[in-house]
């Protein structure tokens, strides 16, 4: 995407700069020539060129977006994230009654659905290295699919201005290997 964007930018700048050169050498334009250049500039560069680029980009985006959607599966774990202006509270379907503050435990190598909601104002759940962000809105539950390929610790952020305390509204995601995940679940019993 970056390469294409740079290429388009350079193209436009070159055309713009060439405007001076072209004008210096040109003679008075005839009506015919004006008609012809209107076709090149507006129909060609103005309509056809961006349409092609955008169609390709859009299909690509939708395809990726579709792949990122949460779908049902046997090995999907479900956790719940509840935001407030003070902290994030996480609870677990597989370990009823267990809740953690500002630390989300997930199994590594398995898809996890995070059901996101809010106790007060609007927040946004974001773990940059694992997935895009999704808002936490009071009265609504949004589901985000995460998957950590490797065990480890990942930084998570609130990404929607939520008033005082917004700077420090962060959390950590801990992805456990299978045994440790079982251990975490059993701990709560």
């Amino acid at each position, binding site marked *: 995407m970056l390469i294409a964007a740079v290429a388009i930018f350079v193209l436009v700048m070159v055309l*713009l700069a060439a405007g001076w050169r072209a004008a210096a050498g040109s003679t008075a334009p005839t009506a015919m020539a004006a008609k012809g250049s209107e076709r090149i500039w507006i129909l060609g*560069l*103005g309509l056809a060129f961006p349409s092609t680029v*955008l169609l390709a980009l859009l299909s690509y985006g939708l395809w990726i977006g579709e792949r990122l959607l949460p779908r049902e599966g046997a090995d999907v774990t479900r956790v719940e994230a509840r935001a407030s202006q003070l902290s994030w509270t996480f609870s677990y379907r597989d370990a009823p009654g267990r809740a953690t503050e500002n630390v989300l435990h997930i199994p590594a190598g398995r898809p996890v659905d995070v059901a996101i909601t809010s106790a007060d*104002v609007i927040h946004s759940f974001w773990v940059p290295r694992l997935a895009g*962000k999704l*808002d936490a*809105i009071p009265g*609504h539950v949004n589901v985000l699919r995460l998957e950590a390929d490797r065990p480890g610790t990942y930084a998570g952020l609130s990404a929607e*201005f939520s008033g005082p305390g917004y700077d420090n509204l962060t959390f950590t995601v801990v992805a456990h290997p299978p045994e440790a995940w079982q251990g975490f679940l059993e701990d709560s019993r």
Partner: protein
Amino acid sequence: MNALARHRRLTAIWSSRPGWKGWFSTVNHSDVGLMFLATAFFYFLVGGILAMLIRAQLATPHSAFAGPEIYSQFFTMHGTIMMFLFAIPVIEGLAIYLLPKMLGTRDLAYPRLTAYGYWCYFFGGGMLIISLLFGIAPDGGWFMYPPLTGKIHSPGINTDFWLIGITFVEISAICAAVEFTVSVLKYRAPGMSLDRMPIFAWYILVTALMILCGFPPLILGSILLELERAFGMPFFQVGLGGDSLLWQHLFWLFGHPEVYIIFLPAAGAISTILPVMASTTLLGYRWVVAAAVALAILSFGLWVHHMFTTGIPHMGLAFFSAASTLVAIPTAVQVFAWIGTLWKGSPRLRLPMLHILGFFFTFVIGGLTGVMVAVVPFDWQVHDTAFVTAHLHYVLFGGFVFPILAAVYYWLPLVTGRKRYFRLGEVAFALIFLGFQITFLPMHWVGLMGQRRRISTYGAEDGWTAINLISSVGGFVLAFGLAMVLLEVMLNVIVRHRSERNPWLAGTLEWATLMPAPAYNFASLPHVDSRDPLWDDPDLPVRLARGEGYLGDPVGDRRETIVVDVATGAPEQHVIYPANTFLPIVMAATTGGFFLSVLVKLYWVAPVAVLGVAVLACIWVWRLGSREDPGDQSIGRGIQVPNITAVDRPPGWWGSAFLLVANAIFFGSLLFGYAFLWTVAPDWPPPAFVAPSIFVLTAAPVGAVIAIVACALAVRNNRAGKQPVVGLLLALGGTLGVAAAFGVFLIHAPSPTAHAYGATLWVFGVYVVLHALLAALMLVFLLCRHRAGYISAVRRAELAIAPIWIGYLGVVTLLVTVAAYLPGLVT
């Protein structure tokens, strides 16, 4: 009468009063336009200082410069001021000043309304500045998302300043939009058909229509949020049938078109200036007009792209993602039309052209990152990071500030009649251009590295220190460049160094006036045969000054102009404008009294202020018209047209029609909100429905039908030379019947504080009652006017306006009745 005598006579007629009184009573578009521009640039300074404070705060990690509470006010007010108090008013000011000159006429459609709009902006902006000075400025982000901005999480007065102040300022935008629409369509030089209009006028027409459709949703949202905060009506409160997402929809339904409302006039300036800089005509005039219209329409299908992360179904996202990428096409058409224009002509690298090149460089980058953000998965990553901050500044600074600076330098000689003496502008441009890139280019990177928007500080371990410091330094370079522009403009006003006429050798009519432009614009109005009348006839200014055009001989102290046919530009009607008056500022102050009383919660004052506005409105309209039938007026060149008092569709009819468009969008947004809450919000359907009332169900439709029919009858009788009084009285009864019906409805409706259902019904009811009372006031006014002898079979124009308002009342009565009772009957 020779040219000099004509100049003196017309100047005496059209000028503002001498001394300080002139400022407060002028209704002349040149004065008000410059007042708008000066005030807007003052706010640019304030918003710029806030930006400097933000950059000072972020320059170093763990900054102790400002605490988070104050910092929240900084960024909220920076966004709010730049959007509402700088960008929109600059456009209004520029168009108010330029439109009549470019269209070859003497003023805008409603001079007093121009002044009223300015004073609303002045007082409304003043409220926000006061909040800033006292440290109680809005602090919930310029988008004001509830529930953060609700009473529970923001109990202070900060949020109320935003909701009330901005709504007050928006009155001026709506006034200006109505005025621009009617002026472009009806107030042009004879012969200027739609396809001979200067391209700038096309852009302003499109922008004005966008304001009429885009601002009402935000005005509605602000009113609903203020009702929630002040009276506990739970429109956005979850658990009581409200939903905070409703605000986001209403806000972005305005917020996205807003970006194009800002961009299009700037594009209009480029389309005007760039061909002149290349000594040629604009390539593909019709294509550019079509692109502007397409952009306007598409921009209303985009609002959801600010809400990609709110959990909207993927199919919905696909639609809005497609629409978001689609807007790149009309933008590309314009950009390539401009580059093609340069190829066609021989470009000169004058100062306005430098700023246009700055625009190209910056805006193309902003457009490309915009396309990236329109791709949903990418947006899920960068949304609410510094990447988006960088993107929007590339679009807004590139797409708005650079073109506006080009416009300032291009039209400055017209305003001051001077030419630039000290060559500060080139240095200023270099500083602005480099400063801008240094500030915002690195911000893309730091955003991709995960720096969120609106954080007040960060840690050294985040690794953002160097980039932020570079940005801050760039920001101060940029500010220095802008300060030099300000200095140069002031020097230009002071230093006596006269410019020659038409210094850029342009072809549009504003350069056919004297320089600096006189209060009356044209000593006589030109007849236009092409898009560039000044190129066809370089002697046009002299011939106009000699009075060879239309209306060359001033009659008494009448401010006269001509109204033309919308499509062809054939002269149609003769207009006498109202002269200088204090009425606009008094009316704006009274309107301000209403907003102020709501702000400080002195609710008993509010109805008094409304009554005051109604009385002033009656005085306002009473001053127009005459007690004698005017004959056809001779406008010169052997043409006779009727006066606007003696036609079926006077300018007031057009203004009302476009105001009703905005009103209908407002009402439509309310219906949308009702349907949205019903289908999306939790806790619906409500616990109990309103019980159908026989009285409401009969009195409302019967009253509305009587009002419509009787009013039409009154108009017909009057034209036939018979008495309209009986029809008007019957119509009055009908409107009062509707008011009574919905008064009863309000009494029986469920509590507005218990559930969003009751709250919405309450707003519906009040909306109908207000419109019924407004229609009744119009009818009473007409009865008085008839009694006083202002209405006759010939002077029938006064009767033209009430019927459309009463027709509108009929439609909303029907829709509200259905919306209120149907759900209860079905379930």
